[in-house]
């Protein structure tokens, strides 16, 4: 049973790591701020989500698991809002620097 759970952890965490890879590649390669924002938010939130899901069987139930999910939801929510704000800032023109 625990072997199956460990296998599940490995699979999900690995998938999450791949999303981080994709996000970073997008951040480096995409041509303008809005597409880069797209790459970053899609990828790193899915990445974090998959890592959180993968870690769930490895932490104390229920408080540890609850906190893990809360972390993901908070990061997700913050990233969503911030992307909105940043995209607006990018659209309305960059700050003079």
């Amino acid at each position, binding site marked *: 049973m625990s072997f199956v759970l460990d296998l599940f952890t490995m699979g999900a965490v690995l998938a999450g790591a791949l999303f981080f890879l994709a996000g970073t590649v997008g951040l480096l390669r995409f041509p303008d701020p809005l597409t880069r924002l797209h790459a970053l938010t899609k990828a790193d939130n899915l990445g974090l989500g998959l890592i959180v899901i993968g870690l769930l069987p490895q932490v104390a139930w229920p408080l540890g698991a609850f906190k893990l999910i*809360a972390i993901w939801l*908070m990061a997700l*929510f*913050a990233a969503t*809002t911030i992307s*909105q*704000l940043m995209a*607006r800032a990018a659209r309305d023109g960059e*700050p*003079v*620097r």
Partner: protein
Amino acid sequence: MTLALAVDIGLALLVLAVAGWTIAVRDTFAAVIGFVAYGLLLALVWVRLAAPDVALTEAAVGSGLTGLLLLSASARLRHAKTSAAPPGPVLQWAAGALCILIAAGLAALVLLLPDPAPTLAPAAVAHLPATGLGNPVTGVLMVYRAIDTFLESVVLLPALLGVWSLASEGDWGGAPILRHPRPDGALTLMAQVLPPLGIIVGVYLCWNSADHPGGAFQGGAVLAAMWVLALLAGLVDAPPIRQRGLRVLLVAGAAVLLAVGLAGIGLAGAFLAYPEHYSKPLILAIEMALVLSIAVALALLVAGPPVRTPS
């Protein structure tokens, strides 16, 4: 454990790279972003150094609040003339040599640290059961070195008074304004959803600190951040600084600590000594008062001097 060492080496290189970039980059706004990342990485380093209490403080205060403070300051100073020229090359080289010398000296010191390292850990653990606490760092902060904690809760007040005293003459007693210049739906939503969660986390960190990492400083910093978020979104207005309730709240933590400390002279024979069997509830009471005072003080330090004339 070479894999863990690989994590540490990667972390150390990353911290140094971000720090170097923060110092070297031309643009101040970018440098502040680098500093926020630096604080975040330091929180990871603290975890690797088995100091979760410090990691919490670093994440909340070092990266979060300080980052916000410096970012908004750099935004306001964006149009400032940078009239001052950097020092000449000779001075720069001299400063560089001096700093390398100091860093090398410190590095030598690190390499020459005595090998059975001196430690107070056994002493801290030995007396911990008498305090009723399970977290040794809370034990140090609230019992062994409670005088430091007292002085620190006091020192926030002169800093805040210093900030307030920078108000224009007519604004004294008024309220600071921290509102975002263009508050919009997304920011408002965030300021509505995040604070309830943040308040739970802040109270949890403080309440749980007897046996788990956390404490009044970490909890207070999280609460302060949530208040600042609501201020930024314009959901609430900062109170005028002449308000009596606000000032009571600011001194409550230090006052409770002082009262318990003075009572200790009579009841337990020394200033800041807790009577036996009552130490844990007393410590919790002090921490609850402290967390409120610290939260208000930190948030007002971010908010800056009052700029709205008292009505």
